[in-house]
């Protein structure tokens, strides 16, 4: 078995043992979307698609950040990370496998809730496709950035605020591209460039961020 599969299986099992780690962000997604839907009388009008798209992107972003914040924290505490760093020549595949599993157990269920959110916010049906497509790529980037932030703050107690400060600026370009692609589609402008841009960032994140995360994991053991 290669390191990717080992890490994927392990993280998936851990997610299964701690279902609240996935369920809490899902509950957050539903609650925030419901509150916005309820506080705008009758929900946003069909003409307010831009608002619905922005809300869904931001709520998915925050939910993903919530789900990624604890990445590798348990491994750091119990010494598993020491064993990972000690025994492996390269942590790259381990990080990729672990983040892929994390996306599967936290972002995938959130994406499954997007149609519900789109319905609650009265989003035009014809926009669901582009929204969903852009959110798939966006959620991948958000997960990688979230894990990157979590790794940066390993060993720091109560790291929530610091994590948000570190990670939120990284999310902004993806958020703008994603929302921009959907809004351009709404106004029948060219949206392909923005959509390709998000997928390009997602591909770059999958390829390059594991190097950075692996390096940070090693650094976390230096002190």
């Amino acid at each position, binding site marked *: *078995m290669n390191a990717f599969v*080992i890490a994927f299986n*392990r993280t998936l*099992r*851990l997610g299964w*043992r*701690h279902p609240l780690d996935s369920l809490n962000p899902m509950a957050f997604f539903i609650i925030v979307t419901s509150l916005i839907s309820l506080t705008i009388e009758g929900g946003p009008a069909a003409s307010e698609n831009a608002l619905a798209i922005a809300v869904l992107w931001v709520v998915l972003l925050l939910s993903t950040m919530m789900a990624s914040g604890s990445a590798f924290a*348990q*491994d750091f*505490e*119990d*010494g*598993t990370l*020491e*064993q*990972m*760093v*000690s*025994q*492996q020549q390269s942590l790259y595949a381990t990080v990729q496998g672990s983040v892929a599993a994390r996306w599967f157990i936290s972002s995938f269920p959130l994406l499954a809730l997007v149609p519900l959110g789109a319905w609650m916010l009265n989003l035009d049906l014809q926009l669901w496709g582009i929204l969903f497509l852009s959110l798939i790529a966006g959620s991948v980037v958000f997960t990688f950035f979230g894990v990157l932030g979590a790794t940066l703050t390993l060993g720091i107690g109560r790291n929530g605020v610091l994590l948000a400060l570190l990670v939120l600026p990284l999310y902004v370009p993806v958020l703008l591209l994603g929302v921009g692609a959907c809004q351009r589609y709404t106004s029948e402008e060219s949206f392909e460039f923005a959509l390709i841009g998000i997928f390009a960032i997602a591909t770059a994140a999958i390829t390059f961020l594991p190097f950075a995360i692996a390096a940070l994991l*090693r650094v976390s*053991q*230096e*002190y």
Partner: protein
Amino acid sequence: MPLLTVSALLVEASERPLLVDFSLDVEPGMLIEITGLNGAGKTTLLRYLAGIRRAYQGTIDYHGHGFAYVGQKPGLNASFTVMENLKWITQNAHQRVAEADLNDVLADLGMKSRRNTPVGSLSAGQVRRCGLACLRVLDAEMWLLDEPLTSLDASAVDWLKESLSTHRGRGGAAIVATHSTLNLPDTRFIDLNAP
């Protein structure tokens, strides 16, 4: 040929040098006990030898069949069962070990009945036993042990001593950082506080 050669290693903690030009050859069958006061650098040295900390000055070369490291933290996930943790340890070291062999090691340690118990439900001593089980599970010629006697009862200490003796007899070697000596014959002591 030595199993491990350490040459001119600089051991630092928080950018403060603890050991300068530290050199060591570990031959098959050797048992080395690293002693010293708190903060002398015992744990830090072992972390360098295990590759957890990177050596920026000096070299660490293993010539044998790899190493097994048991640190002060157990390296076991509390949510996984004892068997799941042992399986992960072997996978992490890219080794295949039959479940029957894992059961044998657990039986030796008196832990077989707890094989399907989550590690989080075990006592500190039992967790320590499971951590030490990886020594027998992994095919490694060099053992690196950091305070292995912590939380162990007399039978587990006997098991560890017997395992060390068997390991040395097979041509393996061990470096143990400890405050309490294992009292095994032919042990070389390195006192990090010695001038």
